[in-house]
């Protein structure tokens, strides 16, 4: 369904590029990294999702149970664009873009494709400014590699998440139903 969603007229940016290390509001040193190969960090990311409180799941993701988590990440791993947040040696946040195409192998120009965004931050690290930073670094990395159009859906009643997306420049582009669709055009 490429090219079917509405996007804001004005591009947004620039956003910071990873890697960066930054202190969160609790004084913890958080490192934002875009791994060259997601396979290298997939084990650490699986561990984060195993710790993730399922009450914060959204629209069925992340799945629960290590096998289902690994299977989900491996399914989207190859063509996805990822930024992970580390505290010491643990992944505590993960943001990703997945191409909206039936044939990811045939992507010639990342700017031609729409990318779906999702972001998760481990419960103990929420409300410390990490989500905003993680989102900004993902968008900075995306812009660096030529991605222009990013969209997402969020549960309509999830006001904190909607406020976060608006803060970095996403605009609401339609309310299908239970999900609010939002989009951003990158510089």
């Amino acid at each position, binding site marked *: 369904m490429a090219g079917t969603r509405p996007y804001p007229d004005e591009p947004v940016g620039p956003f910071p590029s990873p890697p960066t290390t930054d202190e969160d509001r609790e004084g913890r040193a958080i490192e934002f990294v875009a791994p060259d190969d997601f396979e290298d960090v997939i084990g650490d990311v699986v561990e984060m999702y195993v710790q993730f409180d399922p009450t914060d799941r959204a629209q069925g993701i992340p799945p629960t149970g290590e096998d289902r988590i690994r299977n989900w990440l491996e399914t989207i791993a190859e063509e996805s664009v990822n930024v992970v947040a580390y505290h010491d040696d643990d992944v505590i946040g993960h943001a990703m873009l997945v191409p*909206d*195409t039936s044939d990811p192998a045939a992507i010639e120009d990342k700017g031609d494709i729409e990318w779906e965004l*999702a972001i998760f931050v481990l419960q103990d690290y929420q409300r410390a400014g990490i989500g905003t930073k993680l989102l900004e670094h993902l968008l900075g990395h995306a812009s660096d590699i030529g991605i222009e159009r990013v969209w997402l859906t969020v549960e309509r009643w999830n006001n904190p998440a909607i406020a976060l997306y608006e803060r970095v420049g996403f605009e609401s582009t339609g309310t299908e139903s239970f999900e609010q669709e939002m989009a951003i055009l990158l510089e």
Partner: protein
Amino acid sequence: MNVLVGLVGSDESVKTLRQTVDRTHDVGDDLTVAVVEKPESKRSQEEMVEQAEELLADADVEAEIVTLEGDPGSALVDYAEQGEFDQLVIGGGTLSPMGKIQLGPITEFVLLNAPTTVKLVR
């Protein structure tokens, strides 16, 4: 049980019908198939009816097939309300590239307005 299954002509509709027909076959429910009008669907209303007829014949299940005109959600709920149905079955949404479950406006209308039990097929 008296079951009404609502179809819009998508791949999810075909999956929903298949599962419902299997269940009907196993437990001996009474089944009515309602095909609504959704012009942007992959299959036209006629094509969906034809496919439903085939599926029912293959499974050796008897069911009445009706076509409903007008707004899909409201036509379906209205039809369910007029009949003596115990359950209304519809497709349970699509998956985004990320794997997020997405429910469309028809599903939302049915869930919020149907007086019967509603079953979403995944």
